[in-house]
């Protein structure tokens, strides 16, 4: 089994926003969704998730309310706010720029050859 990739600092929030953007989720669901959409590549330390969720809640990017899960458990469901949507789009663009820049920088350069 391949080693799960280490998360870069600051990317957890982006991943949570992305996960929640696909529909309301409870905390455990966010964990599963991130694992699923990253093709099992990203595994988040479970306990680190909640401080992240609360941070986003405080910034007004997420909103939460208690509900019932598919297997009839009480759980707190998170949802994107409008501000959260805007932030997700913005951060995604930033990430893409950064990733392609870093990718370009790390690609083998002609003079190395």
């Amino acid at each position: 089994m391949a080693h799960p990739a280490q998360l870069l600092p600051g990317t957890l929030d982006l991943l949570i926003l992305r996960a929640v953007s696909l529909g309301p989720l409870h905390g455990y669901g966010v964990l599963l969704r991130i694992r699923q959409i990253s093709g099992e590549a990203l595994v988040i330390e479970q306990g680190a998730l909640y401080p992240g969720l609360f941070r986003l809640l405080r910034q007004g990017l997420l909103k939460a309310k208690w509900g019932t899960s598919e297997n009839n458990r009480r759980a707190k469901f998170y949802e994107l706010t409008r501000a959260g949507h805007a932030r997700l789009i913005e951060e995604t663009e930033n990430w893409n720029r950064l990733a392609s820049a870093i990718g370009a920088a790390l690609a083998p350069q002609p003079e190395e050859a």
Partner: protein
Amino acid sequence: MRLLDALRFRFAVLFHRSRMNSEIENELRSHVELCADDLERSGLSRQEAERLARIELGGQARFAEASREAVGIQFVETLFRDIRFGTRMLRKAPGFAAIVIITLALAIGANALVFGVLNALVLRPLDLPHPENLYSIARNGTLAMSYPDYLDLRDQNRTFDGLAAYTSTQVGLDSDGNPSRAFADEVTGNYFDVLGAQPYLGRFFHSSDEHGPDSAPYIVLSYSYWQSHFQADPAVIGHTVQLNKRPFTMIGVAPPGFHGPVLFFTQDFFVPLVNQAQLEGQSNLAARGTQSILMSVGRLKVGTTPEQTIKDLNLVGLYLERNYPKTDDKMRFTLSRPELFGDFGGPPTRAFLTALTILAALVLLAACANLGSLVAARTADRSREIALRLALGAGRWRILRQLLAEGLLLSLVGGSAGLSISVVLLRWLSAWQPIPKIPFRVVVSPDARVYVSALLLSLLSGILFGSIPLRQVFRTDPYAMVKGKSPSAHGRRITIREFLLALQIAICALLITCSIVTARGYFRSLNDNLGFEPHSAVLMDTDLTMADYRADQMPAMQRRILDSLRAIPGVGAAGFANLTPLNGTFRGSNVFSNSAADLRAANASANVATYDVSPGYFAAADTRLLAGRDFSWRDDPSVARVAVVNEKFARTVFRSGDSALGRFFKMQDGTRVQVVGLVDDGKYERIGENPRPAMFLSILQYPSSQTTVVLRSNRDPEQLALALRGTVHDLDSGLPVFIQTWNDGLAISLFPDRMATIALTVLGVMGAMLSLTGIFGVAAYSVSTRLKELGIRMALGAQPAEVLRTALARPLRLLVFGSAAGLLIGIAASRMIASIVFQPTPPDPMVMVTVVACMSFLGVVAAWIPARRALSLHPLALLREE
């Protein structure tokens, strides 16, 4: 939206810390369960699944902690830490803390006190069901009306659910063979029903109890009188007492705090108005023309507007004018509120209390400016500490929050101290009986609104003066500071401290101006010619109806009383009257020229103050007789009516001075009266009033049961009172009397002026204290920061005068500018205040001189110590120190 959500979240955190904490626990628990469900599905037992889930989640406690921090509960905990730290810092600077707390306690105490009174007298509605529907009918700015007019208004209006009427009287109540004076409200039968009150004990009387004059001899006791006079004995209900020697049955007790629709007056009991003849010896109930002080209060029908009501009442007014043209003239009605006697007390009270509220707020503002400059100085002194903390990585907001927490801490402590003081004072004010003769009370018990407003004011002032260092903190350069450079604010034209000082001095000068204007107006009107001499005179009040004298027996009895009192050793001149001037009661009557044929109110030459007096009254009162003669005992009903008038009367009615003697005028009832004497103008209703016409009639020709004997004596009033009481008791043991010095007797008409003078003087003194400490603070700081510079100047040979100029020129210049601005605003403002309380006075050079002298004195006193310090510098020692 985002901001709002975030804010809401913050507040939720702030106020629901424990709930937030348990919510985090719940959520983590739910996570474990969900995770365990998954594991269970893969074949594990529930127990094993939960164990694994918990392991997978990791250290729950640690994450809960991290989550709490992310949520912002940390914020609250930081706040507590700030407060703890602030307490520690303040304990290190007890002088600073004490000054701030005392200043704030005084300023917030003053505000809470003024607001408490404003709240009780103006803002708080009457403690009756649906007080907003209660109105009084007013006409010509007064609530007085006659009983027949009241009956027509009550029966013909279509807009009131009920209209009641009431008036007050003094009666002798005898429950144990020892009659005492008491104050009763004579009220109509529907009074309690209109007000919507329920008896505390027994029953009230109702309209159905009234069957014509003297048909309802019932008493409803007020709760406090039942407590004080009947020891709260429920068995008194159903018993009979003697009121003015007539039997009345006590049928009930009003609920605690019920005193009808009027503030200020705490009557002892209520009796039916239809029994007026028994209580006052005579009754005005049939006299349509007598607008006695019968006041109305009614409850508007639900859905009726005041405009509709006024229209409706004026229809009744038209009817009255048409049917009773002789007595009812210009029957135009308006609606007013009963609490402060309609337009008589309402607008002046409201205006004065509003002005006072504004001034009190200014005191607080000045206090904040004062403390602001103090805090600014302290922050400058702490700049090294602040720089160090910045250098060690503290955020500027964090430091600011710390300073703000200190400010809030101080303001809350000061505010609670001030609130406690004001609550004590309000309680005392509520129990105070400023006018000994009548049950006049200013009930101003504090309520939640007072507490909340004091709390808000404390917070606000804490934020105000606590945020002064904002700029200082942001300008602090930790690098320069740590290197040891002292902060240099030189070169800037006006520092924030100086601006605050100027502002504060302006406010204080304003307050001082206002208080001087008021105090001067007060003392000037005291020294005005009152038309009588209250010093070394004693008044003895009684009412012969209290001992059930018939009208034809009264003059003889009054003369017997006067003669026996005159015989007491040490009593000089003596005379009696039905009323004395400035005693709170005022009787006006219309007079007509001798040729007038149509004697309706509109044709009157003047409405004049009217007194019925005995021979010898003018000598006893020390009223100067300018021409003509005093009354004699022969001026009785058998001869033509005579009057003594004042100069203003002579000028107004006859348009001439001395020649008024011997001339005639007519009374409303058509009697011709001849002027036989002319006396000095005086004050009759209010101490600050303009000269007004007055006439004195012979009490033998116009008998009155009300008797006030004026006695001139240099004996000790207490002893004299004993002798007087004994003498009257020997004449008739059933006649209660009330004895006071004439100066005390003026209390009621001086009450508003006295209150205004006291209130404004207190605010002025607070203003003076604030400017004293403010100037001192800034001057002392200015000297202490420039010690080095001053030392160098002195070493280079500067003269003391130059040193002083360097050290103190700026604060003193600010004092001058601030005072000038405050004086100008103060003169404008005090004219407004004065016009509420006194007659407007022309701009008074004395006031300006006094204010300037006052401010200069404060300036010198405040700058004295810093100046001494500047002069006593030893340049060498100073330079060596560095």
